[in-house]
Structure formats: structure tokens, C-alpha cells
């Protein structure tokens, strides 16, 4: 993975959301979201179901446009950009429900992800195993421990393996900022430990936001935590502050959690 050009890192924030809101008819999914995430910062977004976490991700990646507000990515206003333009600038995401190419093999899925952020998306030249991009894709597959399933069709993978593949695809190219949507959901304890090791082991310049219900995972990988409720941000702070906050404890952590 090559580091992003230093000049582009000069922006104050990797991601800056100003007064972002999203309405679906009469439902206000997001309201007045203000969020600033620095380059290389790791942020956890917590909140109950329906708090607007995934909608927030969809607005950031351009899956749908926010009703109001502006989104800046490394200082550049990307609010009007289609999804692929944001991705080409170094933004990545994983999906809560696996959105993989079920008919293709593991390596082909990762290869498509690598090709999407490089030149030659329309190339008619057949892919060879010796291609540099194919080598990169194989390295990514190894990184998420799917070496043995390299040629397996995605529809034949276990759930946990599909989650790992999602992460490999998010790491393709030279990501500068990644959005992880519940990457640990449904994983076994061992797989969770692997995931935490993978997230904490990411290169220092790669920042991310992680949506996670598993507090252990979220608080271990994050520098800061944002709490969401009913489409609004109601608390932001360091993991320790959030954990000790009585309001947060009452709402989400339950009495016994420490």
C-alpha cells in the first residue's frame, strides 16, 4: 500500500460534515450532523438501530445525496460528486449486508476492487496472474487470511469469510479513509480478535469510521467515539469519557458494563 501524496494530507480534516441532513419523505433520518474527523483518526459511531448510522455512511460515500449540508473530503467539497469519484479520491467502505459479486471468485472480487481505483477499467487485455494488480489483489487476500479460498466462488464462502472479503476489498488501492459498517457482526470470537488486530494494524495515515455494536471492538480500535440517537449526534469524546458517561451508560451500555 503506497502512502497518499503528502500535499493532499495537508487538509485539516479527512472528513468534514457540515449541517448534513437526510429526509425520506416525512422521516428525518439525519438532522444537522456536524462531524470533523482528522487525517489518520479512528472514529467509532455508536447508536441503537435506526439512529441513522448507515444513512450517514450512504451520504458520505454518495450512495444517496444528503437533503441539505456539505461534505468535504480532505478539504475538497465532494457533496455533488457521484460515488465513483469519491472512491477514486481514496474513500472506501464496507457494507453491513455483504454486497459482493456472488458469481465470481474471491480473487476476482478483490481484483475488481483494485481495478476500480486504477487505470484500465475498460481494458480489453486479458488479466494474467503476473499482472502487478493481480499480485496486489493476492496480497490483500492473504492479508485477510483467505489464501485457501482464493479461487472459491463467493456464494460458497462462509459468512465470516465474506466479511473478511469485504474488508480486503475496502483496503484495495491506496485508501485514505475507510468506512466500516458493522464489520464484526456475526463473527466468532477468534474472527473478532483477527479483525481488531487487522484494524489496529492499518497504516497510520489511514483513518476510518467504524459502526459497531460490539463495544469491546469499537472502544479498542477507536481514538474518539460519536454517539448517535434518532438521526442526531448527542455526544462525542474519547472512549474512556464515553464509557464513563452516565447518560450513555443508561442508554446503551447497561449497568453491568465497565
Amino acid at each position, binding site marked *: 500500500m503506497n502512502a497518499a501524496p503528502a500535499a493532499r494530507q495537508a487538509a485539516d480534516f479527512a472528513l468534514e460534515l457540515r449541517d448534513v441532513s437526510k429526509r425520506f419523505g416525512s422521516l428525518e433520518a439525519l438532522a444537522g450532523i456536524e462531524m470533523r474527523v482528522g487525517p489518520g483518526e479512528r472514529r467509532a459511531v455508536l447508536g441503537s438501530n435506526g439512529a441513522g448510522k448507515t444513512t450517514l455512511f450512504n451520504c458520505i460515500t454518495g450512495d444517496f445525496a444528503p437533503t441539505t449540508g456539505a461534505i468535504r473530503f480532505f478539504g475538497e467539497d465532494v457533496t455533488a460528486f457521484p460515488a*465513483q469519484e469519491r472512491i477514486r479520491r481514496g474513500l472506501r467502505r464496507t457494507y453491513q449486508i455483504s454486497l459482493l459479486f456472488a458469481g465470481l471468485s474471491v480473487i476476482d472480487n478483490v481484483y475488481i*476492487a483494485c481495478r*476500480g481505483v486504477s487505470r484500465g*477499467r475498460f481494458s480489453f487485455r486479458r488479466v494474467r496472474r503476473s499482472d502487478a494488480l493481480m499480485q496486489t489483489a*493476492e496480497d490483500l487476500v*492473504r492479508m485477510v487470511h483467505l489464501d485457501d479460498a482464493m479461487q472459491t466462488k463467493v456464494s460458497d464462502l462462509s459468512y465470516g469469510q465474506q466479511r473478511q472479503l469485504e474488508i480486503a476489498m475496502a483496503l484495495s488501492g491506496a485508501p485514505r479513509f475507510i468506512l466500516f459498517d458493522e464489520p464484526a457482526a456475526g463473527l466468532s470470537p477468534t474472527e473478532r480478535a483477527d479483525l481488531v488486530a487487522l484494524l489496529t494494524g492499518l497504516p497510520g495515515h489511514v483513518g476510518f469510521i467504524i459502526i459497531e455494536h460490539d463495544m469491546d471492538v469499537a472502544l479498542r480500535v477507536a481514538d474518539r467515539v460519536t454517539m448517535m440517537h434518532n438521526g442526531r449526534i448527542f455526544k462525542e469524546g474519547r472512549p474512556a469519557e464515553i464509557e464513563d458517561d452516565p447518560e450513555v451508560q443508561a442508554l446503551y451500555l447497561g449497568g453491568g458494563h465497565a
Partner: protein
Amino acid sequence: MVAVDRTSAAERPRGTLDRVPPAYWVVGVLLLVLPAFVSPFILFQIMGWSFVLGLIALSLTFLGGYGGMVSLAQMTFAGLAGYLVAIFGDSAVDTISQGWPWWAVIPLALILTVLFATLVGWLAVRTEGIYTIVITLAIAAAFFYFTRQNYDIFNGFQGFNSVLPPHLFGVDWRGGVAFYYLSLFWAAAGYFLVLYLARAPFGLALQGVRDNPRRMAALGYNVTAHRVAAYALAGLIAGVGGILLTWQSSQISPGTIAIGPAIDILVIAVVGGLRHPIGAFIGALIYVLLKIFAVDVLVALGLSGERFQLLIGLGFLVIVFFSPDGILGLWDKLRASMRRDPLTGRDRSDLP
């Protein structure tokens, strides 16, 4: 870990000659020596026509099977290429036909067809599923009525006759053997192009667009541009088929591109199996055999010969009901069930 890697690389099918499955050699040699054994009628009417219709259906297989877009305008693209060859080249209608040389006419016809297909694609990719079918059907119908009513360019319902291939290398390319090899060459070229592209970044991305367009955008792809490019390429394949079709019947008229023939292309592709490029040619062969011989069989059974369309329709119904992946899908199912042990239901090939 490295050892594991090497084996998985060795198992991977490659384009090199030694990796070509034996069935390809057998079919290839059979097709090449066929003219030594059968009559020119079979070569020209059955095999030649099957290759040409198969090539047009292949353009739909490419769009539908790899891109997930079902277009009913493929016969329109083919017909446009045929019309353009008649208009710019030679035909019996010398008031319209320009009589330009073939080396200018054929590239020009194909370029204009690709441009038209790109335009249609640009319109059609804004829609999904049934709406794509409706839009392309509307375009096919509009083009059909336009050619039938326009006398200045398309010569109305009569169209053009005596549209003949050039006598290149002193060969009459409408002769049974010559046309057989001509159509076989282009059918094979189209087939291998589609197979090859399936493993190129363009084809892989197209399959990604089919499986999950939203995810493709989230990986940095311009989904619309990819779909439009697929239409352009499918237009090229259909265009080559259309020129051959015009040469084979030596004429092009609105009847060639009517709604019926447009739907026949869909039937051919689906009967063969939309997910397999070879399916287009198998479907075309079945269609041609039915079209030529069903009449005789029906008359022999004391039924009216016009009922052959009914046979095709019934066959289509059966296929769609029992095997959405066409004849080749049936074959795959049959092979899988033969391999399975009837008692345990396990795959027999796994046993020692």
C-alpha cells in the same frame, strides 16, 4: 503457504493451447471438415444461417448474460448494418444504392451501427429489468415502421434485393462452402471474443455491474459508462451478423427486422442458455432446424404446416419453466444428477 499457492495457480484454466479442453478440438475439427460430407444446402441454409443468427443472438448473450441487460434491439442493430451495406454498396435498387467499394462500405456500416447502438444503450441503461426490454422493444418497433414508411433511404416495404458479398480473392462468398466458412469464421471470432473479454478487466467489471451495480459505483466504477460500452460492443457483434444475414438472403427489408424476428433472437439466446456464449449457437441451430423441418413433420402428421411457430413457442415455454438457463442449463443439471449417488445424494466424483 507458497506451495498451496502454486497448486491453485496450476489448476487455473489459461488461454494457452495445452489448456484447451478436448471437446473444443473435436468440435473444431468436425466443423472444419464438415463440408466434405454434407450437401451445400445443409452448409448454406442450416449451418450458415445458424452461425449468423447465433452471432446476432451472441450479442444478446453478451449483454444479458454478462451485463444483465436484456435488449430486444439486437436484430435492429443487425438490420441497420445490413441496410447500410445495401445503401452505401450495391443492390438492385440503383436509385438509392451508392455503389461504393466494399472496403469503404463495410467499416462505415459497422461504425454507424456501433454509434446507433451506443445511443440506444445510453437511453436504455437508465432503466432496469422489464423497462429495458420495453424501451428496446419500442426502438425496434420504431425502426421497423420507419424503414417501412421511408422510401427515400430505406425503400419502404420492399427494401433492397440483390445485396451480394464482394467477389474477394475471386471467390463467390454466397456459394455453399464459401459462405459456410465465412460465417463459421465470424461466429468463431465473436464467440472467442466474448470468452476472452469475460476474463479481461472490461468483462469482469461488466459481470460486477450485473451482480451489483451499487457496489461497483462504491468501488470507483462508472456503471453507466460500462453499460453503454457493452451496448456498443454488442452492437458491433450484431452488426457483423446483420451484414452476413443480408448477404445470405441477398436482401434486406422491414420483414427482416420486424418485432417477430427481434423476439426470435431473444428466444434463441434464452433456449440455448443466456449464461453461456455457446448457447446462442445451440439455440440458433435448434431454431433453424425447427423452422426448416417442422413444417414437413407437421404436414406428415396431418397438421397444418403453419403451426411450426406453435412448436417453437411450446419449446420456449418448456425451457423457461424447467431450466431458466436454457438447454445448457438442463445439460448441467443432468450431469450433476448422474454424478450424484441415488442413495446418499452425495457427489460420486468425490469418492475414491
